[in-house]
């Protein structure tokens, strides 16, 4: 199954969703060598946003990937109240949409905008990313924290020089 993060990001942006990239792709963004097999984003889970997510992947056979049997993504009225996260398998790869980031309060406030040739996207800032990885606390997250702390230290050193 392919994993095309660029295409997923572009689709989400084109849907009008205001989101922040978190997780492993955000770790890569900040400069840590890290392989991740899904795209994690965070956004408020109101009805409008959930519909935007659904529309972004509508033609990609989206299915809930953590259910015992992959259930197709179908939005009922109750889904907008009950859903806090969406873990999706799509034709362009895995897309995890979360409504909050562990260890981080206002994730939109604690994000940075990055410009790419294919658009502008928000990523969790380095300190918030470190906090989130610490909060999750799995072994691989803590390894990422070590890398991110070293990168932060290096960034701070460079800022002091200039």
């Amino acid at each position, binding site marked *: 199954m392919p994993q095309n993060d660029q295409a997923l990001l572009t689709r989400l942006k084109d849907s009008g969703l205001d989101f922040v990239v978190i997780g492993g792709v955000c770790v890569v963004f900040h400069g840590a060598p890290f392989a*991740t097999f899904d795209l994690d984003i965070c956004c408020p889970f109101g009805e409008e946003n959930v519909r935007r997510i659904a529309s972004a992947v509508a033609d990609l056979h989206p299915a809930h990937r953590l259910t015992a049997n992959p259930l197709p993504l179908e939005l009922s009225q109750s889904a907008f109240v009950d859903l806090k996260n969406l873990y999706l398998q799509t034709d362009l790869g895995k897309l995890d949409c979360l409504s909050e980031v562990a260890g981080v309060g206002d994730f939109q406030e604690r994000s940075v905008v990055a410009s790419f040739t294919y658009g502008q996207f928000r990523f969790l800032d380095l300190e918030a990313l470190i906090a989130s990885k610490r909060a999750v606390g799995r072994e691989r997250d803590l390894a990422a924290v070590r890398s991110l702390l070293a990168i932060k230290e290096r960034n701070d050193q460079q800022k002091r020089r200039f």
Partner: protein
Amino acid sequence: MNVVEWSSAGTARFVGFWAECPRAERRALALALGAGANCWYFVFVIDELTLAQMNGQYALPPDAGPAWRSAHEAGLDMSLIEAALKLTPEERLAEHQRILDFLLEVQAAGEVHAAK
């Protein structure tokens, strides 16, 4: 000084030797290239640190702070981080995508192999 190699080719002479490097107090490999009485020389001094790096050992940069050292001591390959930091964020994500494509290909090949 321990001469480890000596050879001549035409008027050029090549010599490699181990020498004590008095300033750094480190063993160093020096290579000298000469060309007779009116000779010219290139001298390359490869110190112990460089030799270690050539053998795959990561050398902490002199300005490495405690977090950088701690990550290195924990076994992280800091040379990969240094390489990534030289890229723009867009280049990092593109590189990650290339690696991901390759890993998924390897994974698929592994599954085919396991099914046989």
